[in-house]
């Protein structure tokens, strides 16, 4: 296996195939730790991980926190309400203050794309992107890859469909990066107003016909649709969205027998995904959650090993 030399995880765009596979392999070994009676190993004893969340999040933050704790790292939670953030202190100021206290890693989520990069360029601390605006959510894509590999044994050659608000989805972008690097064929599907311009240049196909998509794909990734999209006029109504793009049993009638239905959560049941399907035989939504923990343990373990190194390329 290759040697890991990344100090921060900013996006899947910067990872190559071998590095992605290394995270997946490491996660596979680490998954067992959570099944033990004593769910804790001393690997990251004495390390401090700060969870700096400028956007609210329950599952991602909990997942990172548990991952850190299972590896014996200390964690600190800082939830910053963006609107309440005083104008005087920038995100970089906040992070610099944390670094002054010698923390080893900052896991950051922010509503603006590129904030993890801004921190990584200016700090020596390891930075993990836990979601930046509409750009990337690398650990989500890694856990999705892991789940598919676990269930289907491979990524290469699979047909993957991503349905929903592609324009605003960091999950979609990270997954497109990950899947295409590992040799899957990705098709994105959603309302034309929520399809980002030039998305084809990332190597994906675009369709507006969800039934056609369902028929051919091995994996169907359903994205969360935000209620605000109606207010922002991207959609005539959420009701019409559900009718056209919502995944239900009826639409899945033409699906392959062993199709996997995935969702990054939290689901709007009855909107993008019917309850039947979310809890049904094809759904691997809870596996995704379980695997998220293993993936984040792997990321923490790998990144915190390359201690004291300056960020690559700086």
């Amino acid at each position: 296996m290759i040697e890991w030399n990344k100090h921060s995880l900013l996006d899947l765009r910067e990872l190559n195939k071998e590095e992605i596979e290394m995270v997946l392999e490491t996660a596979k070994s680490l998954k067992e730790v959570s099944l033990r009676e004593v769910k804790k190993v001393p690997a990251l004893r004495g390390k401090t991980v700060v969870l700096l969340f400028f956007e609210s999040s329950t599952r991602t933050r909990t997942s990172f926190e548990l991952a850190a704790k299972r590896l014996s790292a200390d964690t600190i939670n800082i939830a910053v309400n963006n609107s309440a953030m005083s104008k005087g202190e920038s995100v970089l100021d906040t992070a610099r203050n944390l670094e002054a206290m010698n923390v080893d890693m900052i896991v950051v989520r922010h509503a603006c794309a590129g904030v993890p990069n801004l921190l990584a360029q200016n700090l020596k601390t390891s930075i993990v992107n836990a979601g930046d605006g509409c750009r990337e959510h690398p650990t989500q894509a890694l856990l999705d890859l892991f789940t598919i590999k676990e269930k289907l044994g491979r990524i290469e050659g699979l047909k993957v469909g991503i349905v929903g608000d592609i324009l605003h989805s960091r999950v979609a972008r990270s997954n497109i990066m990950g899947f295409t690097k590992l040799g899957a064929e990705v098709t994105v599907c959603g309302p034309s107003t929520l399809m980002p311009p030039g998305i084809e240049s990332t190597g994906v196909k675009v369709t507006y016909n969800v039934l056609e998509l369902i028929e051919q794909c091995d994996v169907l990734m359903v994205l969360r649709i935000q209620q605000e999209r109606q207010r922002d006029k991207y959609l005539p109504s959420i009701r019409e969205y559900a009718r056209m793009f919502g995944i239900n049993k009826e639409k899945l009638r033409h699906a392959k027998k062993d199709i996997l239905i995935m969702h990054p959560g939290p689901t709007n049941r009855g909107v993008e995904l019917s309850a039947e399907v979310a809890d049904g035989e094809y759904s691997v939504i809870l596996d995704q959650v379980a695997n998220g923990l293993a993936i984040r343990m792997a990321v923490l373990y790998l990144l915190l090993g390359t201690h004291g190194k300056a960020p690559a390329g700086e």
Partner: protein
Amino acid sequence: MSLWIKNAIIVNADKISRKPQDIFIEAGFIKKITASSDTPQTLSKGGAVNSIDAQGKLVMPGFIDMHVHLRQPGREDKETIETGSRAAAKGGFTTVMCMPNTNPVIDNGMIVKAILDEAQRVGLVNVIPIGAITRGQKNEELSDMFELKEAGCRALSDDGKSVVNSQLMRLAMEYARMAEVLLIEHCQDPNLSGCGVMNEGRTSTLLGLKGDPGVSETVIVARDIELAHYLNTRIHLAHISLKRSVELIRFAKSQGIRVTAEAAPHHFTLTEEAHESFDTNTKVNPPLRTKEDVEAIKEALKDGTIDCIATDHAPHTEEDKEADFDHAPFGMIGLETAVGLVITELVDPKIISWAQMVERMSAAPARITGLCHKGEISEGKEADITVIDPHREWEVRRQDFVSKSKNSPFIGRTLKGCVEATICQGRVVYQREGVPGL
């Protein structure tokens, strides 16, 4: 006071002197130009006059920047008339026109006068305020255009945003025609540009940044061209950034519509890919576009579809620029890098000639704004002169900027061609360290 520029190869928009010339300046005007060989011996032995030896240099009419932000009044932490004047002089500009989006907005004669007084006190370059088209740049009612003109404005603009309301723009153009003052439009439909922070397209999709589609610029370009045609008046379009805009302007000009346009150096040197590093110093409005657009802007500067080069010098503090990409303010400084970029990217690759450089940076802006004593080196004209070393290479360094702000994405770049001396109204207002003379 008199000044003598020796051995000058004079570059005018229409002519380059074949043999070295000597330029004699008195009381702020060019009094006499003679072939250097004809200069009386008594003078060349050194007399009472100050002299600059321009041997091996190009001597051009002082550059005129129709589009700068000097931030005073309101944001003196970013730039002042004094620091901006110094940056202009260092960049070879003898005249700068400062945009009215200050606090308070330049929308009445008092503020115009205050700026002119301060520029006078600083006494480096000509500073000509641009007044607002609408009071407070609020897009609601016209500003008092006659008052602004009398106070010293030659042009009006709501720069930073378009006059969105088409009826209001129509009235502004009609009224400005009567007041004989130029209108400069910032072309951007705010409903289309939304919260966009970069050009909408493949790269914005990849970077997850909100896109401002090019069409937000072109719809206003097209509208203003149509208004100018309908009202039989003229309009100047600021910082054109798109191939489509260039095509619209080219068409308008072919129809005889009186439209003029400018382009900023960053729009013919950088593409949207500069945002890949999330460097907020690359964040500008209108945004950096694609390679195709950059090529079209260069072509337009070559064929004259775009009349002039203006920097859109927009200083911002490091604190403000250190924000995330969404929240960092738009703009980059440009006065001190413009000449280097124009020579490196346009003249050196032979896209435009030296004479065309003078046309785009001095003669055209003088003509567009009615500065009839500027834009040319000839006897009787104002003695605004820039001396260029066409070969000298230099690195853009943060610490070398005299502007109060340092927000330049060009830091670290090596540029060819540099300003040796700047003379404004017969006075040397800038001379590069190590240049002999005086």
